[in-house]
């Protein structure tokens, strides 16, 4: 397994650049991997004619950590902690898709309270993720103050995640069959205060950007893609909806009880950077609506399934029941077996369709886990969006796709 540096020659990439690059008429310029506007470690090889992007060749893999391979050597429960680390702005969503896949594979039921809490937390996480997107996107296009405000509000949401799981980001709070433990008593008040706070704050961000002529100049008619083109290119999430395609998995293929909630799917019409911005801003408001409904719906009750073959018994039972001790021992030493067969489960992450393929082989460890990540699919369309624009606008286009490199490389 050699890891020596090897030079990549123009010869290997000549099918990706125009003939003018080989004659020296256009310039090949490297952007990244260490570049503040690439939102992580993304390297772009740009072919430039003056300041205009002729071709853009993304080079990824700098954050590849082999999560899929590592998960194959862990039991289903142990592997949960690895899913957090993929898309580090949507940890709740990553764990959700993985536990939903396990629950589908082993046919495990989830109590109503756990489903509602899952929705509250993933929707809060969606808002937090959109806040980071808005902050960095605006910063890329030189709106510094938005960055500070967004991170201020994000902290309130991370406080709620910490209150529940003990961690701000790598929460691993959802488990097969429900939650790790019930939410603390102060949870409802904390979420309620976010619900009261956020609408005003979102209006504040919009007052800084939506009608700002500088913002409109930098975003409108930049990186335009039509609906049919976006579908063929595999775009997903807000990037697809901004092109006028109504496709939200929470509505189309509801999971975890989304069919019980009322919310709208914001859709754009121009498919440019500005419409993607508007879609995500409206999504934050819709997420608040869902959280509000879920909070009203929250009834006391169990937060984890009572199926002892898959879910460990509570501590209180261990002192009294031999059966409980046996289950506890089996679950923490060997893990639970899952049947032979593969299932697909998809959720709507803040970035788009996050799908998990989980294949069991009858043993306690997954045979194959694959995550179809929205950032990977969206980043693939970047060359299509970037051609013909200025380098300065390329920065805006990358921001509007809202990629997380941990999600791209896994």
């Amino acid at each position, binding site marked *: *397994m*050699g*890891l*020596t540096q*090897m030079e*990549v020659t123009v010869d*290997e990439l000549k*099918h*990706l650049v125009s003939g003018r690059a080989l004659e020296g008429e256009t310039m090949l310029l490297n952007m990244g991997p260490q570049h503040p506007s690439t939102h992580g470690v993304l390297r772009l090889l740009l072919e430039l004619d003056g300041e205009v992007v002729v071709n853009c060749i993304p080079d*990824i*893999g700098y954050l*590849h950590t*082999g999560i*899929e*391979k*590592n998960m*194959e*050597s862990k039991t289903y429960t142990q592997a949960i902690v690895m899913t957090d680390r993929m898309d580090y702005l949507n940890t709740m969503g990553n764990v959700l898709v993985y536990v939903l896949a396990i629950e*589908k*594979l082993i*046919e495990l039921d989830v109590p109503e309270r756990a489903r509602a809490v899952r929705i509250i937390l993933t929707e809060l996480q969606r808002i937090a993720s959109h806040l980071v997107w808005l902050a960095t996107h605006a910063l890329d296009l030189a709106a510094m103050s938005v960055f500070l405000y967004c991170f201020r509000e994000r902290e309130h949401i991370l406080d709620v995640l910490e209150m529940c799981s003990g961690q701000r980001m790598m929460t691993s709070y959802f488990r097969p069959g429900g939650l790790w433990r019930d939410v603390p008593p102060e949870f409802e008040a904390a979420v309620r205060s976010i619900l009261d706070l956020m609408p005003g704050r979102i209006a504040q961000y919009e007052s800084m950007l939506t009608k700002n002529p500088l913002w409109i100049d930098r975003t409108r008619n930049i990186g335009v893609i039509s609906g049919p083109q976006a*579908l*063929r*290119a*595999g775009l*997903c999430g807000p990037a697809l909806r901004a092109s006028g*395609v109504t*496709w939200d998995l929470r509505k*189309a*293929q509801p999971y975890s009880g989304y069919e019980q909630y009322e919310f709208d799917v914001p859709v754009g019409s121009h498919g440019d950077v500005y419409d993607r911005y508007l879609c995500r801003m409206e999504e934050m408001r819709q997420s608040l609506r869902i959280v509000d409904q879920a909070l009203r719906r929250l009834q006391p009750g169990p937060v984890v399934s009572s199926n002892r073959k898959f879910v460990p018994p509570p501590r209180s039972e261990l002192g009294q029941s031999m059966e409980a001790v046996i289950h506890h021992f089996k679950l923490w030493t060997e893990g639970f077996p899952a049947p032979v*067969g*593969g*299932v*697909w489960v*998809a959720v709507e992450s803040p970035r788009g*369709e996050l*799908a998990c*393929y989980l*294949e069991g082989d009858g043993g306690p460890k997954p*045979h*194959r886990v*694959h995550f*179809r990540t929205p950032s*990977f*699919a969206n980043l*693939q369309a970047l060359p299509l969006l970037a051609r013909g624009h200025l380098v300065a606008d390329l920065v805006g286009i990358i921001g509007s796709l809202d990629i997380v490199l941990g999600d791209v*490389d*896994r």
Partner: protein
Amino acid sequence: MDHVDKAVDSLRRALGESILSVDVFRGQTTVEVAPDRIPDAVQHLRDGPELDFNYLAALTASDRWPTEPRFTILYRLYSLPHNVFLGLCARLDGNAAELPSLEPVFPAANWHEREIFDLFGVTFTGHSDLRRILMPYDWVGHPLRKDQPQGYEEVQFTFNFDEIDRRKPYARE
């Protein structure tokens, strides 16, 4: 699931014996297609009468080494107008791990196929840019194959601490 049944019937009529089996697991239908007919099958699902499978959501592989055929390539197609999804799969022998690329039908397959090429060593003929995508350019082997060891860090005890320490690949002064 009506639309899925309709699509499977239509596939059978169009491709005949190239449809090898239809498997339903946990309510999800997967159609096994002969590897060389995969682009035809997907094109039929996309353009066939009233089928409208217009979105390729994912493409991945699974390795069943040492049994042959060891590779299963899985395709996940959505029909947005009908709101259903259908899985396709193709099984490949480890000694001839090759099948036609889906890129001419769905450009979105480009990176997904590169990923499978990189991590499983399956070749897609007719692909426009079949290079490694996640692993370094000069990496030897295909990490997600089951016969690739995962690697681990050796545990150091007092009696062999220095011996193992010498082999460890970290920077020393």
